[in-house]
Every structure is written in structure tokens, then in C-alpha cells.
């Protein structure tokens, strides 16, 4: 369509432009008339001559309008008006339809935008499809870390169009500007990070390889800050470039600001400051991170046209050379032994995706089903409306309207409803999205997503809108085209309504079946959540306050001593029964590598069972959490760095690794096994105690072997962990009361630490957030599906009763009792619900395989859940059917028969 813009402009200014035209033509006439009068004609004569000469004014206006707005579009406007009037004439039906559409489309939009952000969208970088991340052939729960030496070798191999390295995530830095200090998210990147990604600076410049040198490049130590930090701390001032700030006691210069859309390479995470990798060595007091330390993730950019398989093969071909050149000293036979692998990384590194993929896809299916049910419901309502309008439609046909014109009218009405629903749905989605992300984002694993509605989301909503309008509008529209003009003359056309009854019964069966599936799913998820809430945690969740101590400002070398002092301080606070500290907090224990044990003096065999749960704790930690000691003793104050190495293990450790043995007193060599980097001997440790099993990482994880080592025996003088978690068990049942006194005591020891407080109950709840969200949402949508199915059953039954009034009246006149009438009406409902339940049971059993991974403590084909769902659905059907049935039984045959 050409000249789109002026046409649209015309539509907006239509009234004025048409006025202009009318005025113009009136002037034209006046001029003509004046001319004729001057030629000597009588005014009246002149007027009639003018009229004859100039033709029809209305025709001229019509034709002029046709120039701007095509005929079919003018008809559309008319359809919309008639449609709106029809919808207004049945406000209740319209409200139910629009509301169910708004919820359906809104929920779909909300889930879609999360799916899009987390699973579908690529990183905001240049040609993201060519980005790959380096990993190993072993399946790990985390992204494999590599040493700087390895990265350097790969970078120099020239096999790729660029290589970049970055630190995994999650650590924080203390940022000091003036005399104000705050904790910021940071990560370290190689000098070619930004150029390889193809990201540009919003302000200033980003890093160059020259910046990533020991001691910094020409500009000295430098940093690039995020758009967010720039806005929040610097008010978006352009003068920020060149500003000197202090990060972890090191002065660094800000050289640039990233664009607002750049959030790093991990979806759902964000950052405040970025440093060159070599700053890592600079900001640390220790040499904990050297070129052989595995702590970097490596991303590569494939050459144009280079496939993943070809690139992997090329990399493996040079792996022996890389391995030889990057071999740490002393050399390690396990180092880089597994074949290197490449994985697509265009959509970002997979952490958050892995976490949310299953529940999101599941929710997407659920909300899609709800929308389908809503469509079936509205289609039924529309069919009923169509019957009520049969007279009108037949009359229009008889008066010469084309069948297509009638179908278009009905489709337009459906579209109007869909547009109303989609608009409300979009508003609902915006709200629901924020609420969902706020729910999913917890203290331990924050989720930061840009949730602005963009064209992708709008396109999805529009597609959903049109698809639903077609789904629920097509059948009634097609049926309308089958109306016969002669029907207009008849009072009752039985043929049409028989056909309609079959179609609407079919729709009802679909509704009942899908609702049953959703109710079963809701039942399974709610039971899962309830089971998870009753899992034996192995610790006392009600009386423990967890203090997160952030000690970035404390030198690495002083940290271990400080942490122990802080624990002793907390233990002395009145009201604290026990106190202890650990490097890993409960329920969010990070997996960073595995540990294997072997008899002292022997290297662990390659197939040794790996222990992935290791925690460094202080004396008192086990008592603070209420983890019971089954044999031996707790770690105590005598287990210092100078004493011989000890450890405590849980019962699962004994069960799995040394079944049937009394392990107390046994000495074992503990070796860290980092897949790409090989083994590293931690030391010999004597088992001094066996403790009960406790949840380490996630409640739904099966109990795993766990090793607890004394923090005091940490192998290095420097402790790199800036976060420390102190558990304080309250002597009263409300641990929150302790917050103030514990905070005061800790600040008195060292004012440089920053503190965050959570009750362990909160942390337990946080760890179940995903299951809770799935349970709540599936419960909500299951309920909605039930409600819609109930409404549908009610509507169709009520309609059937209205249609059979005469028949029922005759039956009653012939002696059928009211109870018999109720049976008559309900028998139809029973048949529909019965078929729906049978179909729904089949669908539920078939679909159960897809939810299995999200369940806990309940079978996917749990018979109790299925029976319960069937019972709920049947009772809803009974309630929905009995109201019209009761009304039918109250029919007064005399009145009805007199009417007809």
C-alpha cells in the first residue's frame, strides 16, 4: 500500500479534512452561482442550474474519501462499530470472555518474555552465533575453569578469530569514592574481551590488550564501569572518564562506560566494574592467583564459516602442544587430559538457562493450555450468541448481504474481543513479569533481567491475539455463513441447532479434558512443594540467624584470623546459644571442583569416587546448625594450622565410600580434582567425627557425601574468600531478635566489614522459591481452568435447557416428576464430563513424562493425585450442571405451553 503515511495521517485528521472538502465544494458552488447570477439568471434558477452542472455532492464526497481510504477499510470501521455494539449488549458474556483472554494472553506473554530473555535471545554483541565457550567432555555442574597459561596458549594458536577470558562470576569488590564505600559486582576480563565480543563503549574507551599487563598499561591500573553504576554513582556525568577511584584499596582509573544493554556474558547477571585479568594479581596481597591457577572461563570467536565440529577438531589437534606449554609446575599428569570441547555461547553462558529451562518450558505449556481452554470457552459463548442472532443474520442475508460479509462481521467481533483481551493482557504481563522475577531472584542467586516490553514481546502478543481470535472466532463465523435466508421467516430452525450442539459438546469435552490435565499438574506440583517443605534438612531451621560478613577491605592475610575472632564474638553475645562460621552458606553451597580421598602416600585412582561437597568451618558451626554428631567429636579450638590435619565427614560419606567401617581415627589423603587441570594434593586429614547427613546445596538433591574441614587449617596464609557466613543459634525461638546485638558486636571488632542478616528459615524458603513459584502458578492456572470449564458447562447446559423448554414442559405435563427433569438435564452433563475425564486422563498420563524432572517425592502418575483431580472436576461439573437443571425442574408447564 503506497502513501501509507499520508493515509494514516488522513485517518487521524479525517473530520477536519472532510470538513475542508465540504467547505471547498460549497465555495465552488457559490462561485458558480455568482457567475450565473452575474450572467443574468434568477438566483433560484442559478441554484438549480449549478446543481445540475456540478452533479451529486454526496457522490463527490464519497469518491474523494475513497481516494484516501480503500473501500474495504471503510467497511471494517463499520464492522468494528457494529461489533462493539454487540459486545456491549451482552456485558457479562463479554466481560468473562475478555477477562479470560486477558489472563490467558497475559500469562503467555509474561512467560514468553522470560523464555525469550533467558533461553532464546542472543547476547548484545557482534555476531553472537560465532561465539563458543570452552568446556570439557566431562559433564560438570559448572563451567570448567582454565588457567591463564592455558588461555594464553589457545589465544596464540591463531585457530580462531579471537579468544577472551573472564572470571566466572559472583565475587564482589569494595568500591570507595571519596569516603563512601559500597559493595559492587565485578569481574575480570582479558584485554581483548571487548574487542573480541565486538562491544563498543558508550563513553571513553574499553580495554585493549595493552591494559592487561602486570601493573597495568600506559594508563596504569584501569577499570570500565557499567551504565548502571555510571548513572547511580556518577549521575551520568561525562567527566567520569579519567576519574580515580579506589577498589579494594587499590587506586584505579575509570577509562570508559559500557552501553546500557551490555550485561556481561551471563544472562540474568550483571556487573558494576570490570578489570583486566592482571589486576587480579595487583589487588591481592597474596600470589593466590598465578598463571597456573585455574579460575578463568574461555570464550572463542569462530572464524566466518567455521563450524563447531571443525573448530573442535582443530583445537584437539593442538591440545598436546597447548598442554605441554601450559603445564603447571610441578607437572601434573591429569592436566588437560580430557579432550577439549566447544559449546555454542551466542546466548550467553548457560548457568541461568540450565536452572530455569525446565520450569519455564513447563509453565509455557501450562499457560498455553489455559489459553486453549479460554478459546474453547469463548468459541462456545460465540456459538450461543450466533444462535441468538440467527434471525438477524438470516435477515441480512435475505436483504442481500454476502455470506463473506457476515462471516467478516463475526470475525471482526472476535478480533475486537481479542484486541481488548490482548491489551489488558499486556498490562497484566508487565506486572506479572516483574512479580515473577522478584520471586525468582533471591539473596544468594540474584536474577537481573531487563524486562522492558520490546518488539519481540509485542509481536508475540499480537500473534497470540490473532491466533486466539481465529481459534475461537472461525467456527462461529463459518457457521453463520451457513444460515439460510429462509430461516429469518421461521421461528425455530432445528437443523442448525442440532449441528451446533455437536460442535459445542465437542468443545466442552476438550475443555474438560485439558482442565483435568492442568488440575493433575497443579496437584503434582503442589504435592512436590509440600514434600520438599517436609524434607529432613539435617539442621535446625527455626532458630538460626545467618550473618553474611563481607570483608573485602580486610587484607587476605588477616582474614582467617578475623573470621575466627568474629565467630568467638558472636558466641559471646547474650542470647546466642551456639555460633560457628563457614565459607559456604547452607543451601547455596557452590560447586567449584571435586575432592577425592585415598590412603596416605598413594595417588588416588582415576575412577575414585568424587566428593563434590566440601566446606571449611570453624568450631561451633555444627552445633549452631544443630547437625548431630554420630561418632567421634566436633572440630575444636585445638585443630589449628600447626596441629595435624583433621576433618569431619557425614554418614553418606561413610555409606558410599567406606561402607560398614568405623572411620573415626582413619587418616586419608585429600586431593582436589579439577577436571581440566588435574589433581592437587590438599593434605592428609584424620577423620575425627561422623555427623548426620544435612542438605548442602539444594533440598531436592539426594544426600551426598560431604567433608567438613577446619577453616583454621586452610592450606595458605592468605584466604581469598571475602564472604564469610556466621550462623548464630538463638536460645529463644526468634533468631531475628539477635540482629541488633550481633551487628553491634561485630562492628566493634572490625568496622570495615559489611553485614547482611537472614534467618535460616528465609534461606530455606529462598531455596524452594522455584518450586513454590511453579506450585503457585500451576495451582492458579489449574483453578482458572476449572473455573472456565465450570462456566462453559453452565452456559451450555443453561442454553440447552432454554432450547428444550417446550419439550420439558410437555414431559412434565405428561407426568415426569421434577427429579426426573433434573436427571434428564444432568445426564447430558454427565456424558460430557465423563468423556472429557476419560480423554483428560489419557492426556495426563501421556504428559506425565514431561513433568517427572520437576517432581519430588511424588510419582508422575500418582494415582491419588489423578483420582483427586477427577473428583474435583466432576464436582465442578455437577455444580455447573445442577443450577440449570434445578431451574428446568421449576418450569411451569402450563405457562410454557401457553406461550408456545
Amino acid at each position, binding site marked *: 500500500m503506497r502513501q501509507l503515511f499520508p493515509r494514516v495521517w488522513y485517518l487521524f485528521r479525517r473530520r477536519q479534512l472532510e470538513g475542508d472538502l465540504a467547505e*471547498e465544494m460549497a465555495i465552488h458552488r457559490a462561485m458558480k452561482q455568482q457567475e450565473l447570477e452575474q450572467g443574468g439568471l434568477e438566483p433560484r434558477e442559478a441554484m438549480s442550474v449549478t446543481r445540475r452542472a456540478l452533479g451529486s455532492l454526496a457522490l463527490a464526497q464519497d*469518491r474523494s474519501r475513497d481516494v484516501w481510504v480503500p473501500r474495504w477499510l471503510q467497511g471494517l470501521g463499520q464492522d468494528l462499530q457494529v461489533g462493539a455494539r454487540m459486545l456491549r449488549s451482552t456485558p457479562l458474556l463479554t466481560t468473562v470472555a475478555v477477562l479470560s483472554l486477558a489472563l490467558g494472553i497475559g500469562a503467555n506473554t509474561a512467560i514468553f518474555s522470560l523464555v525469550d530473555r533467558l533461553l532464546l535471545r542472543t547476547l548484545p554483541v557482534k555476531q553472537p552465533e560465532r561465539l563458543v565457550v570452552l568446556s570439557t567432555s566431562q559433564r560438570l555442574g559448572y563451567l570448567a575453569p582454565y588457567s591463564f597459561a592455558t588461555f594464553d596458549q589457545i589465544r596464540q594458536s591463531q585457530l580462531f578469530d579471537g579468544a577472551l577470558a573472564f572470571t566466572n562470576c559472583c565475587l564482589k569488590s569494595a568500591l570507595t569514592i571519596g569516603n563512601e564505600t559500597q559493595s559492587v559486582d565485578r569481574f575480570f576480563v582479558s584485554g581483548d574481551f571487548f574487542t573480541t565480543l565486538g562491544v563498543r563503549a558508550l563513553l571513553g574507551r574499553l580495554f585493549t590488550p595493552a591494559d592487561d599487563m602486570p601493573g597495568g598499561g600506559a594508563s596504569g591500573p584501569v577499570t570500565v564501569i557499567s551504565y548502571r553504576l555510571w548513572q547511580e554513582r556518577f549521575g551520568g556525568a561525562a567527566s567520569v572518564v579519567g576519574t580515580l577511584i579506589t577498589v579494594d584499596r587499590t587506586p584505579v582509573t575509570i577509562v570508559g562506560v559500557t552501553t546500557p544493554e551490555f550485561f556481561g556474558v551471563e544472562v540474568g547477571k550483571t556487573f558494576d566494574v570490570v578489570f583486566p585479568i592482571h589486576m587480579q594479581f595487583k589487588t591481592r596481597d597474596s600470589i593466590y592467583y598465578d598463571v597456573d591457577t585455574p579460575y578463568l572461563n574461555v570464550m572463542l570467536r569462530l572464524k566466518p564459516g567455521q563450524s563447531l565440529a571443525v573448530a573442535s577438531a582443530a583445537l584437539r589437534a593442538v591440545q598436546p602442544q597447548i598442554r605441554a606449554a601450559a603445564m603447571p609446575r610441578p607437572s601434573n599428569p591429569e592436566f588437560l587430559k580430557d579432550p577439549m570441547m566447544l559449546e555454542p555461547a551466542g546466548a550467553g553462558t548457560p548457568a541461568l538457562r540450565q536452572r530455569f529451562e525446565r520450569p519455564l518450558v513447563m509453565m509455557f505449556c501450562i499457560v498455553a493450555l489455559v489459553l486453549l481452554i479460554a478459546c474453547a470457552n469463548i468459541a462456545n459463548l460465540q456459538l450461543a450468541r450466533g444462535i441468538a442472532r440467527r434471525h438477524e443474520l438470516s435477515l441480512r442475508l435475505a436483504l442481500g448481504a454476502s455470506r463473506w460479509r457476515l462471516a467478516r462481521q463475526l470475525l471482526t467481533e472476535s478480533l475486537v474481543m481479542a484486541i481488548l483481551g490482548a491489551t489488558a493482557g499486556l498490562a497484566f504481563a508487565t506486572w506479572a513479569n516483574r512479580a515473577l522475577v522478584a520471586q525468582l531472584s533471591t539473596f544468594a542467586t540474584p536474577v537481573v533481567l531487563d524486562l522492558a516490553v520490546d518488539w519481540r514481546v509485542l509481536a508475540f502478543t499480537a500473534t497470540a491475539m490473532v491466533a486466539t481470535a481465529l481459534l475461537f472466532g472461525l467456527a462461529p463465523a463459518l457457521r453463520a455463513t451457513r444460515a439460510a435466508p429462509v430461516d429469518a421467516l421461521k421461528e425455530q430452525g432445528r437443523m442448525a441447532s442440532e449441528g451446533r450442539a455437536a460442535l459445542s459438546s465437542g468443545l466442552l469435552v476438550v475443555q474438560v479434558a485439558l482442565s483435568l490435565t492442568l488440575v493433575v499438574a497443579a496437584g503434582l506440583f503442589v504435592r512436590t512443594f509440600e514434600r520438599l517443605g517436609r524434607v529432613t534438612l539435617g539442621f535446625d531451621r527455626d532458630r538460626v540467624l545467618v550473618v553474611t560478613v563481607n570483608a573485602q577491605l580486610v587484607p587476605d592475610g588477616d582474614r582467617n584470623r578475623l573470621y575466627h575472632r568474629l565467630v568467638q564474638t558472636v558466641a559471646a553475645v547474650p542470647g546466642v546459644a551456639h555460633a560457628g562460621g563457614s565459607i559456604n552458606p547452607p543451601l547455596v553451597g557452590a560447586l567449584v571442583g571435586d575432592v577425592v580421598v585415598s590412603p596416605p602416600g598413594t595417588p588416588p585412582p582415576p575412577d575414585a569416587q568424587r566428593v563434590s561437597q566440601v566446606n571449611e568451618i570453624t568450631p561451633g558451626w555444627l552445633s549452631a546448625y544443630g547437625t548431630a554428631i554420630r561418632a567421634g567429636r566436633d572440630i575444636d579450638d585445638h585443630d589449628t594450622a600447626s596441629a595435624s590435619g583433621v576433618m569431619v565427614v557425614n554418614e553418606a560419606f561413610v555409606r558410599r565410600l567406606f561402607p560398614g567401617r568405623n572411620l573415626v581415627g582413619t587418616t586419608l589423603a585429600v586431593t582436589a580434582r579439577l577436571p581440566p587441570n588435574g589433581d592437587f594434593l590438599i593434605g592428609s586429614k584424620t577423620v575425627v567425627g561422623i555427623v548426620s547427613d544435612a542438605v548442602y546445596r539444594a533440598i531436592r538433591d539426594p544426600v551426598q557425601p560431604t567433608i567438613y574441614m577446619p577453616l583454621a587449617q586452610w592450606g595458605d596464609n592468605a584466604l581469598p574468600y571475602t564472604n564469610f557466613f556466621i550462623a548464630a543459634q538463638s536460645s529463644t525461638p526468634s533468631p531475628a531478635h539477635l540482629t541488633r546485638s550481633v551487628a553491634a558486636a561485630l562492628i566493634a571488632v572490625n568496622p570495615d566489614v559489611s553485614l547482611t542478616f537472614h534467618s535460616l528459615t528465609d534461606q530455606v524458603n529462598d531455596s524452594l522459591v522455584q518450586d513454590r513459584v511453579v506450585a503457585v502458578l500451576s495451582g492458579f492456572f489449574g483453578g482458572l481452568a476449572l473455573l472456565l470449564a465450570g462456566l462453559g458447562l453452565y452456559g451450555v447446559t443453561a442454553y440447552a435447557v432454554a432450547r428444550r423448554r417446550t419439550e420439558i414442559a410437555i414431559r412434565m405435563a405428561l407426568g415426569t416428576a421434577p427429579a426426573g427433569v433434573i436427571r434428564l438435564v444432568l445426564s447430558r452433563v454427565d456424558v460430557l464430563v465423563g468423556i472429557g475425564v476419560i480423554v483428560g486422563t489419557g492426556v495426563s498420563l501421556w504428559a506425565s513424562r514431561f513433568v517427572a524432572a520437576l517432581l519430588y517425592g511424588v510419582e508422575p502418575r500418582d494415582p491419588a493425585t489423578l483420582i483427586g483431580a477427577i473428583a474435583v472436576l466432576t464436582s465442578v461439573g455437577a455444580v455447573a450442571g445442577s443450577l440449570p437443571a434445578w431451574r428446568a425442574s421449576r418450569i411451569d408447564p402450563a405457562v410454557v405451553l401457553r406461550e408456545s
Partner: protein
Amino acid sequence: MGQNGASELLPGTLDLLILKTLVAGRQHGYGIAQRLKDVSEDVLQVGESSLYPALQRLLLRGWVKAEWGASENNRRARYYTLTAAGRKQLAVERQEFDRLILAIHKVLNIA
């Protein structure tokens, strides 16, 4: 000759004639019709139902501009002006028209 001589014109010719009329300077609808009538010696009598849709078409395509102004005898009137695009279009249509007329001549002269 019918009153709406213009409706019997070849398709698109009215647009061409209006554009040509406006070359002389801005003109209102009545003036355009008047001028067509005068120049054609009363052969082309354009009615409103042809003239105004044509003017709207030219407006839509951006070949003319319209603005309200005062007429010779101080009445309000809507004046049309040729735009640069309209001038270019006139040349194109003129050429096309000449070609068509030539073709028609050729056909008529065969016999």
C-alpha cells in the same frame, strides 16, 4: 456534448490537465474547472464529482499542495499549488500522453 465531459476523458487525463493548469500558478478548485472550460472552449466541463476526487488523489500523491487563502473578491478559498514532484510528474505524464495520442492516431490512420 454531455455536461460531465471530463468523465469521458481517457483515464488519468484529468490529473494531467489539472497539473498543467496549475503550472500557471496557484488556483482554487473553481478556478481550475473554469480555466479548463475556457481554454477548451467549453468542451471540458468538469463536475465536482470528478474534480475533487482527482484533486484528493493529487494531494495524496504529493503532487499538489493545498492551503486556505483569500480569493480575488476576498472570499475564503482553498488554493492548490504544484509541488516539485508534481512538476516532474507532469513532464512524465505529458510524454506518456503524447505517446498514447500518437498511437491512437496511427491506429485511426491505417484505414
